[in-house]
């Protein structure tokens, strides 16, 4: 076999191994969700077992999955839209009208991500209590939007940087106001970038557990709270926990699968040009 072909084979083999390793926990969780509790905790891992749906039935019986799922959808999409509304003008200003402090501002925004969220839990909790935002959709939408804002601004900033300045200047010569520039030129040109940024924001918000566990109880609790409720003081129920987790990640997994082309294109945008 020629070396180049062998090289190719090794690379794809390596790729498959890495992909399998990454995916393995999800696969294992998926399998466990169809086991009986006894099989699930057995010391010898087995992949051959009698599949059962009893865990799913039990989970649905204990908690209304669809209510939690609906909350997750509202909160993650709501927070993404809110964040984009602020991030697009911000990234536009920083990409096309940079000042001496633009770089510093961008880095400072990112640095806020380094703060452990628990450090501001008490003040945020107290503010939310006073504003009656605890356990409300709006409350989580605001928190998630703020949480993701730095990343969204950064991503949009890099996408906008790719748009030639001349095109926006031509728009200005044609009489476009800043808002019209955004609406008619920049946003249509950046749809792929905005879409992948939005997608990432939805996924991050969907998976967020810290704030949703601490700021919600029942009414606005998303799927992360739903999962957590199965690691209960009554004991560990691996199979039920797995079933709950599988149900929790299923929507975002399908959503991500459908839009993976967009996502990959967005994340590598500008890398090759």
């Amino acid at each position: 076999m020629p070396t180049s072909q062998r090289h190719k084979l090794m690379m794809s083999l390596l790729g498959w191994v890495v992909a399998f390793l990454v995916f393995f926990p999800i696969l294992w969780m998926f399998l466990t969700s169809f086991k009986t509790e006894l099989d699930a905790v057995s010391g010898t891992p087995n992949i051959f077992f009698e599949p059962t749906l009893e865990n799913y039935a039990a989970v649905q019986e204990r908690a209304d999955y669809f209510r939690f799922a609906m909350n997750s959808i509202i909160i993650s999409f709501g927070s993404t839209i809110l964040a984009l509304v602020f991030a697009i003008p911000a990234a536009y200003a920083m990409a096309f009208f940079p000042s001496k402090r633009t770089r510093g501002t961008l880095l400072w925004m990112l640095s806020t991500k380094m703060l452990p969220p628990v450090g501001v839990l008490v003040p945020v909790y107290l503010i939310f209590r006073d504003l009656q935002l605890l356990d409300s959709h709006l409350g989580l939408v605001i928190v998630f939007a703020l949480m993701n804002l730095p990343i969204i601004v950064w991503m949009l900033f890099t996408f906008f940087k790719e748009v030639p300045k001349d095109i926006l200047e031509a728009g200005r010569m044609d009489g476009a106001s800043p808002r019209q520039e955004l609406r008619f030129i920049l946003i249509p040109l950046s749809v792929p970038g905005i879409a992948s940024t939005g997608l990432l924001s939805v996924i991050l918000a969907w998976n967020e557990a810290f704030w949703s566990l601490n700021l919600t109880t029942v009414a606005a609790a998303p799927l992360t709270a739903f999962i957590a409720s199965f690691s209960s003081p009554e004991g560990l129920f691996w199979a039920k926990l797995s079933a709950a987790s599988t149900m929790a990640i299923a929507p975002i997994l399908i959503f991500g699968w459908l839009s993976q082309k967009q996502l990959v294109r967005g994340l590598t945008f500008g890398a090759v040009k």
Partner: protein
Amino acid sequence: MATLTLRNIKKVYGDVEVIQDLSLDIEDREFVVLVGPSGCGKSTLLRMIAGLEEISGGDLSIDDERVNELPPDRRGLAMVFQSYALYPHMTVADNMAFALRLAGVSREERMAKVGEAAKILHLEPLLDRKPRALSGGQRQRVAIGRAIVREPRVFLFDEPLSNLDAALRVQMRIEIARLHNSLDATMIYVTHDQVEAMTMADKIVVMNAGHIEQVGSPLDLYHHPESLFVAGFIGSPKMNFIEAKIASVGGDGTKVALSDGTKVAVPVSGGGMSSGDAVTLGVRPEDLTAVANDQATGGDLAGRVVVAERLGGETFLYTEVLDGQTLNLKGPGAMTYRVNDAIRLRIDGATCHLFRDDGKALPRLARNPMADLDAEPVAPGAAG
């Protein structure tokens, strides 16, 4: 109708003054070319006129109205960018109609105006295409069409042809010149290409390091450069410069001596100069002639051919004379000199220029008749 007046215009970036105290008048329907090496501030000046760049000081007026603070679209200008800057997600028709759409013009009227411009520029079959499906020349025509549709008072061109290949550049150059005649519009055109400047301009503004070196008609600049910089910039190949010393100053001209003692009489006024002062003698490559050995006189420079470039119709010879100085010569295509051949160059003093050591030219005693050719008024209807 549009006249432009620039009074003491300044542009400052931080501590750097990129344009210093610049004043310029642009007449109605004039085709003005701003030319200069890269970084001389010509594009910045155009962008300040356009309103894309803030004016740090001075007054910019269009038709006697100060427009310093007006946004670009309210100045009644249209600009054609070097990169075309078409909207990639819109069709050719939408690109051209965008300004009208923003201005709230009705759809029928928009389409009528786009159709008119498309006809002038032969773009009709392309109106439904997206810019990426067009060639470079077609894109440039759309960019010009987008400017025409707005019926601006002044057209601004920022190096519009530099992304095109040589053949297309010549063709577009002619098209823009024709457009200028048929639209009767004031146009300001920025380029670093002196051929574009010479062929298209009514008035050339030569810029250098943020200030104006000279303003004049193409042939005025060619025959009467006021400085070493303009002399070197206008004309291709570049003017030859030879170190010399004043030999004598008289009423009918100034005589200089080259380093080998050769004397050249130049018809310029030597006011203020005295014998022995260092000057630079400027000779255009087309004013140098190669003479055969048997016709040689004492006034010829002996040298050797270093490089010969044959273009078919003409020949450029790069020669070495006077201990290593390079002189370029432009001659007919039939020149048979080869590399390393000995050559004798004759300098015709009547066509030479003299520059003082501060770079200023000594004024010529008489104006070259060609320099005032373009100043003759053109009879209406004669052009286009």
